[in-house]
Every structure is written in structure tokens, then in C-alpha cells.
């Protein structure tokens, strides 16, 4: 494949512009699809991994009840209720030496509407907790401050809010920080906004910014009543490696404290194992998308072969002329093969360009992340497609006897 055959192939392509463009389109779509679909797959994987990492990979979530939140009872084993005493026991360093923090969470009523200056909204999540929630759940504030131990101890009527919640009250284009130090009516109670949480985005299930966080004591005072129970406990292990150990310890501790309870009476979720499960399912998703795209690339390749076969048939006379004036078999092979390779390579490069452009848009809520391997793979495959599907038509073209080719009409 020398410069001369490239020049000749380019001339051939230019002489048949429409056909060349259509051939390239097939490869373009295949390559573009591979890049975009793989990017969507890895984009959603990255988003999910990020949201799980935001929870902290060395944290465990202990929730009451069997399957699903709350005690459902029924035929399955009755769920237990986690009490303040359980929280105290979990915090006991002598029993659970690897635990570094225990954060109780009391869910407020999700039907509590908030209102401010005439606007009203219902927070997606409404929780009461303690000051340590912020570092453990990786929930810093961008303005104001988080809850302090004093807020909990003094039952201060304050709250920290997420940006979506703030925007729902202020308007979508408003700066959420404007809600700072304002009095917001939440249910029956008026509370002072003392902090705005840093935005976390969606975790794929819900908007993590549509949240209000109150002192645990205040939630009990005004919304749930002082039942002495908590909805969830977040337990942070000293290290990520210790989480599995801590998970077992918590399970046995809670079982011993609640007589008659079984392993299904409560749930201890390990974020690390969730993360790996999530990663696995995302990989499956990416592979699935990738194979759909690979099939389209294959179809594009067969398109190239089809067009090359048609080209050879249509240009049989031309091949005859070329042979009559002295073209060798190898000249013809390299011309047609070069045409096929150039068509698919150009189509591939255009497909990469389309893939890059397409990946700038958010697709079904996912910000695509371009994977280098998919670009390399797509270009490699498009080249291989050109070579593989170009060889047969090219050799068919070259084997014709000059007189047979010339007589062809």
C-alpha cells in the first residue's frame, strides 16, 4: 500500500462521492455508537460509584426491620426497633473497638411541608441527627455551619438544608445561600436555617440535595415524639478493612440485646459490598451496551463489504481498462483494498468525532465518560473491518481476465 495506490484510491473515492459517503456513514454510526454507548455505561458507573463513595466506604448502615424500612412484620420474622440504648451499646469501645463513630438518625415525617415567603415544598428527606453526621456522611456545608453538639444538647430550633430544597423555596435560579439565617416554617414549627449543604447531585434513586437536617432532639420534640427509638444508625469503622468484622460484631451485639431476633430482624448494610455489587452490575451494563454497539459496527463492516462488492461489479470495465494498459493483479488489489481501508478509517475517525461530540451531552440523565480503550478499539475494529471486508472484493476484482472485464457492460 504505497503512496501511489493511496492517491489512486482517493481518486476512486472522489469519483464516486455518494457511494463513498454512504459507506463511511455505516462505519461512522458503528464507531460513534461504540464510543457513546461505552461512555454512557462508564458514565453511569462513575456516577453510581461516586454517590456510594460519598456515603463513605468504611461506613455501615444499621436499619430496623426486615426487608424494607420499618417493622413490616407479617410472615417473616418480626423486625426489631433500634433504641437509644442500642446506640449507646454500639458506641461502647470495649465491645466494638473498631468503631470510630456512631451516628443515630431519626427520620422526621416526610409529609411535613416547608414554607417560606409564600413558597412551599416537601423535603425529599427529613432527618434528625448529631454533629458527627457531617464528616461521616461526607456532607460539608458551603455556607453557614453544620449542627453542633450544643444545638443538639440545647434543642436549638435550627436546620441545615440542601441546595435543591433551598431552590424549591427561593426559585430555581436563585442562589440557595440566600436562605441562610432565614426562618423557614417546617410543618408546625419555625426553624432558622444555619447552613447550606454542599451539592451532591443525584445518586440515581433520589436527589440527595432535597434534604433538611435538624438536631435529633428537635425532631423528637416536634415531629416524632420522644419514643426513645431511632430509624437508622450509621456506624463508621476505623478502617475500610475492618468493616466486615464490625458488621459481624454489630449483628451479634444486636441479636444478643433483642431476644428472639434473627439475622433478618434488622439490616446491617456494608457500603463496600454495595459498592462492589454496584460496580459488577455496571460492568454488565457497559458490556451489554458495548455488544449492541459492536453489532452495529459489524453491520457497518458488512456494509463496507457490500458496497465494495457493488463497486467491483460496477467498475469491472474500469478494472479491464486498467489491466489492458498494464495494471498488475497487485495494483488492482492494492487500489481496492486501499479504498476499503480508507473508507472505513475515515468513517471511523468521523465516528470518533461524533462520539466525542455526542458525549458532551447528558444522555438519559447520565454524563458520559469517554473511555480511551473504546476509542482505540473502535478505530482498530474499523480498520480491521476495512481490511477484512475489503480483501474479498479486491481479490475478486483483480482475478478477472482483462478481456472478460473489458467486455463487461
Amino acid at each position, binding site marked *: 500500500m504505497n503512496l501511489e495506490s493511496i492517491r489512486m484510491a482517493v481518486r476512486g473515492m472522489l*469519483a464516486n462521492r455518494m457511494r463513498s459517503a454512504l459507506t463511511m456513514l455505516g462505519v461512522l454510526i458503528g464507531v460513534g455508537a461504540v464510543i457513546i454507548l461505552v461512555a454512557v455505561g462508564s458514565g453511569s458507573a462513575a456516577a453510581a460509584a461516586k454517590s456510594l463513595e460519598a456515603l463513605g466506604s468504611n461506613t455501615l448502615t444499621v436499619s430496623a426491620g426486615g426487608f424494607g424500612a420499618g417493622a413490616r412484620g407479617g410472615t417473616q420474622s418480626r423486625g426489631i426497633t433500634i433504641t437509644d440504648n442500642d446506640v449507646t451499646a454500639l458506641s461502647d469501645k470495649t465491645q466494638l473497638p473498631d468503631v470510630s463513630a456512631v451516628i443515630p438518625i431519626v427520620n422526621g415525617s416526610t409529609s411535613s411541608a416547608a414554607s417560606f415567603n409564600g413558597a412551599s415544598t416537601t423535603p425529599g428527606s427529613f432527618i434528625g441527627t448529631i454533629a458527627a453526621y457531617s464528616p461521616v456522611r461526607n456532607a460539608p456545608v458551603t455556607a453557614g455551619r453544620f449542627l453542633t453538639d450544643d444545638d443538639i444538647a440545647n434543642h436549638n430550633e435550627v436546620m441545615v438544608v440542601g441546595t435543591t430544597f433551598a431552590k424549591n423555596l427561593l426559585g430555581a435560579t436563585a442562589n440557595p445561600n440566600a436562605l441562610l439565617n432565614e426562618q423557614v416554617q417546617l410543618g408546625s414549627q419555625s426553624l432558622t436555617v444555619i447552613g447550606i449543604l454542599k451539592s451532591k447531585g443525584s445518586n440515581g434513586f433520589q436527589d440527595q440535595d432535597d434534604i433538611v437536617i435538624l438536631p435529633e432532639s428537635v425532631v423528637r420534640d416536634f415531629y416524632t415524639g420522644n419514643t426513645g427509638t431511632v430509624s437508622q444508625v450509621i456506624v463508621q469503622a476505623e478502617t475500610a478493612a475492618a468493616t466486615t468484622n464490625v458488621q459481624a460484631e454489630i449483628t451479634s451485639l444486636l441479636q444478643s440485646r433483642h431476644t428472639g431476633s434473627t439475622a433478618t430482624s434488622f439490616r446491617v448494610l456494608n457500603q463496600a459490598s454495595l459498592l462492589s455489587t454496584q460496580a459488577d452490575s455496571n460492568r454488565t451494563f457497559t458490556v451489554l451496551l458495548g455488544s449492541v454497539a459492536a453489532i452495529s459496527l459489524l453491520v457497518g463492516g458488512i456494509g463496507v463489504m457490500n458496497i465494495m462488492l457493488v463497486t467491483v461489479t460496477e467498475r469491472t470495465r*474500469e478494472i479491464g481498462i486498467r489491466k*489492458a*494498459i*498494464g495494471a498488475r493483479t497487485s495494483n488492482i488489489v492494492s487500489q481496492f483494498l486501499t479504498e476499503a481501508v480508507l473508507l472505513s478509517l475515515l468513517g471511523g475517525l468521523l465516528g470518533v468525532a461524533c462520539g466525542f461530540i455526542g458525549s458532551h451531552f447528558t444522555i438519559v440523565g447520565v454524563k458520559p465518560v469517554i473511555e480511551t480503550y473504546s476509542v482505540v478499539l473502535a478505530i482498530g475494529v474499523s480498520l480491521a473491518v476495512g481490511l477484512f471486508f475489503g480483501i474479498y472484493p479486491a481479490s475478486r476484482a483483480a482475478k478477472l*481476465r*482483462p*478481456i472478460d472485464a*473489458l467486455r463487461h457492460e
Partner: protein
Amino acid sequence: MSAPLSSVADPTTANPTTANPAAANPAAAEAPRRRPAVIELRRISKIYGVGDIEVHALKDISLDIERGDFVAIMGASGSGKSTLMNVIGCLDVATKGRYRLAGTDVGNLTDDEQATIRNRRIGFIFQSFNLIPRTTALVNVELPLVYAGVKRGERRDRAIAALERVGLGARIDHMPNQLSGGQQQRVAIARAIVTNPAIILADEPTGALDSTSTAEVLSIFEELNMERRTVVVITHEDEVAVHAKRVVRFRDGEIVSDVRQATIRGLPPNVSSPAHAVRSIA
């Protein structure tokens, strides 16, 4: 305004593109012994099909054509004259018999060697011009030189010289469909002579042309012949045949007459003086 080609004295040995000593040497070796015919056909037969549907397109033909001759091969459609042209031009191989072209036995050559022979020794001119579509006149004329491995700059110069020679110097960038039939045939002639071949092989070259273009093409053939190039024209038109030095008639795959109208070394019969052919064809 005809610009002479770079070398016209002896196209067989002066061909600057000759890179195949095996093909060139036998001619040189035989030269002192006897003046060799550039085309030597010995008992050539061509049979199409097998069994009951066998068609004998050529029946035991023997024909010598000497260098510098201008031969018209005539015959009705189906007389075998086109088959003969294909055999002479190495586009097809004979079923039986021996064919030597400029001293080389063509029957023993591989496909690629035959391609080289077509490229270096033969210039083809077809009834339907057979230019590559959607490709400029210049690129069409350059093409044989591409396959001969001639460098770009030289190729372009030689192609332009050949196009000027046939009076198309101003139309080198025209596509075939932007040219008249006569002009297309002249592009085809430029393509045939650009490699400086020993033999010009024309199959019904004027079959698709009007009388003016026919006259132009024939006068180019006469000029080429006066440069001692061998010209073989396949035709069924008597107006074409009168320009040839020798007329061979075919019927049913056999030669029925072989008439010499002028000497090999002399002028073509329709040319009264050497000046006659030197005229503007642009």
C-alpha cells in the same frame, strides 16, 4: 502543432521504461540474423466453448507483421478479427499455436508479465474509447506510466506532451464526459502512445466517430506510422482500410486475402508527401 515524442527512432529498444531484460533481450539477440517480425503468429487457434457448442473463432492462423507496417485487419462481425486483436494485445490467450511479440513468446508468460508487455509494448485504442470515467484526461493518460513506475513529475510531463501531440493540450483537466467523441478518442490515443510502445493496436477506432473525427484519428495513425511505429487497425470500414499499407481480410476465422497497398519503408498510401501529415489537428 505536433510535438514529437522524446524518442521516435526505434520504439522497441528506445523505450526508456524497459526494466525487464528478459523481455527485451531476445529481440536484440535475433536482430542481426534476420529482421524479426514484431508480431509473429504461428498456427493460432481460438476455440470458445466445448463439445457441440464449440466455436472456432480463429482457425490455424499464421501471420507476421513487421515493424513499421500499417496493417488493416478487415472482416465482418464474427469473422474472428476481434479475437485476433485480443490475442495480439495479450488480453486473451490462444487455445493453440505460438505467438511471439517482439521476439518474446507470450504463451509462456505469467499474468503479471503479460501485464508488463501490455504496458510497455502495446498501446490500445478501443471503439468505445475506454477512458476511466470521472477522471481527467491528464490522469487517464498518466495511468499507464503509473503502472510502469514512472515518477510523478516525469509522468506529468510525458502525459502533457502526449496530449499536446494529439492536439488536446488545452483540455488536460477535462473529464471524459466533457469531451466530444473525437476528443475522447484522441485522449485514448495519447494514453496509447504515452509509454512509447512499439505497436499501436486499434479496435474499430473510428466506429463511434463522425467523418471529421475519423479523418483526424486516421491522420494521427499515419503520423505515428511515419515514425516507424507498427499500427494495427481492426476495422470493417473500407475508408479506414485505404489508409493502411497492408490489408488482411478475415472470414469465419480464416485469412481470405492479404493485400499490400504500400511498402513498409515507404509512406502510407493516402499520404502524398511527409508534409501531408504534419498539419494542425487542434
